[in-house]
């Protein structure tokens, strides 16, 4: 026998899952939403997404190499690409390139690498970037172009989104809710908004794909969506003129995108199923509260970031049910 035998502890086999497989799986799940955004926003969507991905990957590479001085670079594991795509999906398609680059720097630099890179960040990097941009550049970040202007980018004409109409209704505009597009239009995405969030249908296809590949479990998305539906439904029943119907809530804004792709981020979500449901319910509740009572029309990003901060606490208190524990109690 030519070789020296290898000795290590069991197990000696592996199911061949890898970080890359999971990350690229998420990227595949994001493709339908990307296609929809290209159909509705055309060249603007392409420029924004490409800029964001390239900037995120570049910053990760540069920070790893020149600041952290690590030998091994992690840009190929796909996590920076996901951050880039998600950041792009969370901004309007007419956002200038320089703002996107700043967002990518904040997302990767502050949101991820300061904490030590993949696996160590307490907050979802894409959302850190998004919220930073929202606070720093509120005008650019909240003027969404109308759909269908395939060839225009920064010069695109803007219009009110369903979410701003809903906010007007809360502030006393009794006719605002009547101007909302139909639920079906909202479902397939024929309305204004950030480029990746418009089509609930495309995002749901992504969800089904991720569940099928076992990349994520159902707990977080379902608990968020169910909570929003129930809570918004109760408010709608209480006052249908002021508060939009729960179906509209589900299909507008970043709710689907957040519930399916951002709240489920491995690193920043709880580890146990029980914890995931608590986390999801709280996000859903906070989102509706911010949407209906807060200063901003959209609350998804804030809700997720707030709950990201609570994740360690949830992990600490929600232990999985130990084997044999059920009998004692």
């Amino acid at each position: 026998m030519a070789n020296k035998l290898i000795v290590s502890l069991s197990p000696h086999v592996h199911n061949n899952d890898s970080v890359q497989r999971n990350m690229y799986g998420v990227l595949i799940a994001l493709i339908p939403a990307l296609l929809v955004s290209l159909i509705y926003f055309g060249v603007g969507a392409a420029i924004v997404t490409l800029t964001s991905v390239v900037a995120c990957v570049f910053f990760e590479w540069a920070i790893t190499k020149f600041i952290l001085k690590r030998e091994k670079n992690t840009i190929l594991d796909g996590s920076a690409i996901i951050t880039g795509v998600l950041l792009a999906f969370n901004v309007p398609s007419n956002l200038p390139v320089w703002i996107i680059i700043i967002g990518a720097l904040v997302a990767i630099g502050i949101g991820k690498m300061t904490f030590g890179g993949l696996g160590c960040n307490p907050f979802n990097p894409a959302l850190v970037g998004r919220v930073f941009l929202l606070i720093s550049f509120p005008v650019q970040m909240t003027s969404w172009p109308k759909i269908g202007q395939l060839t225009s980018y920064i010069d695109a004409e803007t219009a009110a989104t369903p979410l701003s109409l809903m906010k007007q209704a809360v502030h006393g505009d009794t006719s605002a809710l009547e101007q909302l597009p139909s639920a079906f239009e909202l479902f397939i995405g024929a309305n204004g908004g950030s480029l990746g969030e418009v089509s609930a249908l495309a995002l749901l296809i992504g969800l089904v794909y991720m569940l099928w590949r076992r990349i994520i479990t159902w707990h977080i998305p379902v608990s968020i969506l169910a909570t929003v539906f129930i809570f918004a439904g109760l408010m709608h029943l209480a006052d249908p003129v002021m508060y939009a119907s729960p179906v509209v809530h589900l299909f507008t804004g970043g709710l689907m995108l957040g519930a399916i792709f951002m709240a489920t981020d491995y690193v920043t979500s709880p580890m146990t199923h029980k914890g995931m449901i608590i986390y999801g319910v709280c996000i859903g509740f906070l989102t509706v509260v911010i949407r209906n009572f807060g200063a901003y029309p959209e609350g998804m990003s804030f809700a997720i970031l707030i709950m990201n901060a609570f994740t360690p606490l949830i992990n600490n208190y929600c232990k999985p049910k130990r084997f044999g524990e059920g009998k004692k109690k």
Partner: protein
Amino acid sequence: MKTFRIGGVHPAENKLSAGKAIQTLGLPKQAVFPLSQHIGAPAIAVVKRGDMVKVGTKIAEAGGFVSAPIYSSVSGKVSKIDTVVDASGYRKPAIYIDVEGDEWEDSIDRTTDLVRECSLSPEEIVAKIKEAGVVGMGGACFPTHVKLCPPPGAKAECVIINGVECEPYLTADHRLMLEKTEEILVGVTLLMKAVKVTKAYIGIESNKPDAIKCMTEKAQAYPGIEVVPLKVKYPQGGEKQLIDAVIRRQVPAPPAIPINVGAVVQNVGTAFAVYEAVMKNKPLFERIVTVTGKSLKNPSNFLTRMGTPMSQLIEAAGGMPEDTGKLIGGGPMMGKALVSAEVPICKGSSGVLLMNDKEASRAEVQPCIRCAKCVSACPMGLEPFLLATLSAHREWERVEKEDVMSCIECGSCQFTCPSHRPMLDYIRQGKGTVGGIIRARNAKK
């Protein structure tokens, strides 16, 4: 179909030798018997250099209550009592016997006739099992008679027979169930009698439909024995998981043991060994060993005398392939990587698995992405990622608080980790250290 309720994974089965009937392996030139082949105190040699022994002669006496005697599997001359490199690479005392001929002790019934009637009392059965040196044949090697003597206060309600064989590659139990069905069933009735219960379940995973069919048909004639088909899921062969799957009871955290929920679990191989010990007067000195591996020419199941070097089994299965990178005693999930092929077959050697270099090497470790797949996979409801991190940071108090002692070391966490983190290496260290701390604490009291 029934299965256990928490966690679990699905490794590729790779049961390459499932269709191969059991063959009898030839005698070795020299047989080596380590004195510590079981959990508990090592056995004490009762032969000395130059003594002549026969097949079935006792060569070492049990070293305590939790211990088992050892019998020679060959006839010949004791050449020396020295040390041998055991499965873990450390030197342990062992008896070497040079083989001459094949002469058996007269007391052993060498016929293959099935003996069903047994007039012995439960105590006599247990005494015979103890005397024959029978230990758990599934791999843990816990002396069987200890399990059959419930501690005061505990009462057995049923016997559960483990025919699950959830480890990939291994087929020794599967073949035994097909070829020695009746003997196993008689062994089960003996076990039931020994612990004074009237109910026994034989759990078999549904990837062995022939064994389920065969066992179910023959079991009709044995009152109280029920065959329970189980959904395929690893680690169903774990004692606690099997009890949960079959009778829906969960053994509480250590120090609780299966008898606390009324179950006595034995492997099918043990049931067969019990049959031979009680009905045929034959002590435990041979067993079925699966020799397997993807690069091996002829994966097979051998009836092997103990003390035979593994190299002889590999030779009989087509020889060691050039690209062998790892030699595993047992299955790929819980087996031990061996330092050489000269390690002798012991009571707990259920298989020899060869892996090529590529299969055997561990992949590069990546950072934990907190995907929680290990938490979902853990059959004990633990948090492997947390235990591993705490162990690596040597925070033993917290490791203990997070129930490290419940870990059964099944490897599901590491098997499923996308970052290929060596979690179980750390958890084992934590378990070992915390175990030591607990023992020291108890000793103080």
